């Protein structure tokens, strides 16, 4: 039986940091199977988690000094929530893993403790029917596991409620920025060439700065300030941060000297760019519904597209007419 260490080594922390920045994220996994934390008896509780190393690390480090079983499912290195959505953290894999690992022989009881965010993939009554094991969904955060275990395995309302704190939002931003890097660099290059060809290198550079600011306003500032920005729609929130950015940039970068078409284009297209990146952040949130995002996109995408095309036309018209 593999034994689990409950303290994290420097390599684990470095790995977690790299995973946040999207470096080698997919290779970050733990072999699935049954693990012993401490010296569990056949009566000890069984916790189930994904083989995403960050989930596994959080779970094992929260179990310091305890004797429990840990059943790690094969989710191909993906966290519980995303794997449950894809179905890899699911009924089929759980049933299979219970069989392969010989769990029924290792424990006397027939109870499993699952993370609440794994529930979209697992049908508890199906698992019961196929294996005899009863499922309790314990808590959302692994950090609440000690309290849950000490509390006589009762889930408090706080353990069951999702949060999206400033800290939780800020750890998501590096990946957003890294993913925006390539398209942003390409667009910036195109903007610089276009700006330089139309007016001159200095104007090309100003355009690039305005654009980069719009990306940051949408992909970083909007997520950070999320609950405080007006509007329910993410596109609206992004447009608000974008508009704030272009207003500040206009005042600070000598916007009074810009031509009328250029100014109009800036105030039209910059909020559109920010809105696009803010809308993109819906993929990282834990409260946006698919139907909501669909509705929002049907309105926002054509609006953004028109804003950008119209801006380009205005700049061109201002140059050639």
């Amino acid at each position, binding site marked *: 039986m593999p034994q689990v260490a409950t303290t994290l080594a420097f390599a684990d922390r470095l790995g977690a940091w790299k995973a946040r920045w999207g470096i080698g994220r997919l290779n970050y996994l733990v072999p699935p199977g049954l693990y012993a934390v401490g010296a569990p008896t056949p009566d000890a509780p069984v916790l189930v988690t994904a083989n995403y190393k960050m989930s596994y690390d959080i779970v094992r480090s929260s179990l310091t000094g305890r004797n429990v079983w840990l059943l790690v499912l094969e989710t191909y290195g993906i966290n519980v929530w995303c794997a449950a959505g894809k179905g890899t953290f699911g009924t089929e894999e759980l049933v299979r893993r219970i069989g392969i690992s010989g769990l029924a022989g290792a424990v006397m009881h027939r109870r499993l403790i699952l993370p609440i965010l794994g529930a979209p993939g697992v049908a508890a009554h199906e698992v019961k029917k196929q294996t005899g094991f009863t499922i309790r969904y314990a808590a959302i955060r692994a950090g609440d596991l000690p309290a849950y275990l000490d509390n006589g395995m009762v889930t408090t309302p706080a353990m*069951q409620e999702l949060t999206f704190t400033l800290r939780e939002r800020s750890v998501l931003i590096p990946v957003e920025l890294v993913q925006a890097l390539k398209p942003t660099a390409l667009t910036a290059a195109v903007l610089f060439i276009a700006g330089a060809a139309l007016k001159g290198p200095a104007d090309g550079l100003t355009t690039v700065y305005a654009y980069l600011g719009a990306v940051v306003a949408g992909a970083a500032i909007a997520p950070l300030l999320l609950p405080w920005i007006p509007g329910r729609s993410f596109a609206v929130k992004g447009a608000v941060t974008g508009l704030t950015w272009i207003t500040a940039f206009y005042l600070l970068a000598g916007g009074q000297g810009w031509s009328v078409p250029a100014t109009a284009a800036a105030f039209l297209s910059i909020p559109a760019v920010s809105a696009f990146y803010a809308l993109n952040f819906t993929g990282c949130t834990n409260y946006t519904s698919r139907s909501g995002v669909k509705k929002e*996109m049907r309105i926002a995408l054509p609006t953004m597209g028109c804003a950008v095309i119209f801006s380009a036309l205005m700049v061109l018209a201002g140059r050639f007419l």
Partner: protein
Amino acid sequence: MKGFSYLRNVATLELNRDACIDCGRCSEVCPHQVFSLEENKARLINFDACMECGACAKNCPAAAIRVDAGVGCATGLINEWLREQNFYRVSKECC
């Protein structure tokens, strides 16, 4: 979830109270406290908070809940549309 609310009246969630056997699973798994158990039946008390994760429907032993589950992710939806239009798949997935 305090401080956060998304678009209203969009969720595809449906509860058939007649089929409910009052097992309490839906309120156990819902991370947004959409259900409450009243008069031996589940009831929707917070419809607009539903993020369509599908946990309740998947775990309801009486099949009393229906929801068009999926991830609310703009990039994912764009990719889906592109795929439907037979464009090649773009790189990023949601999770």
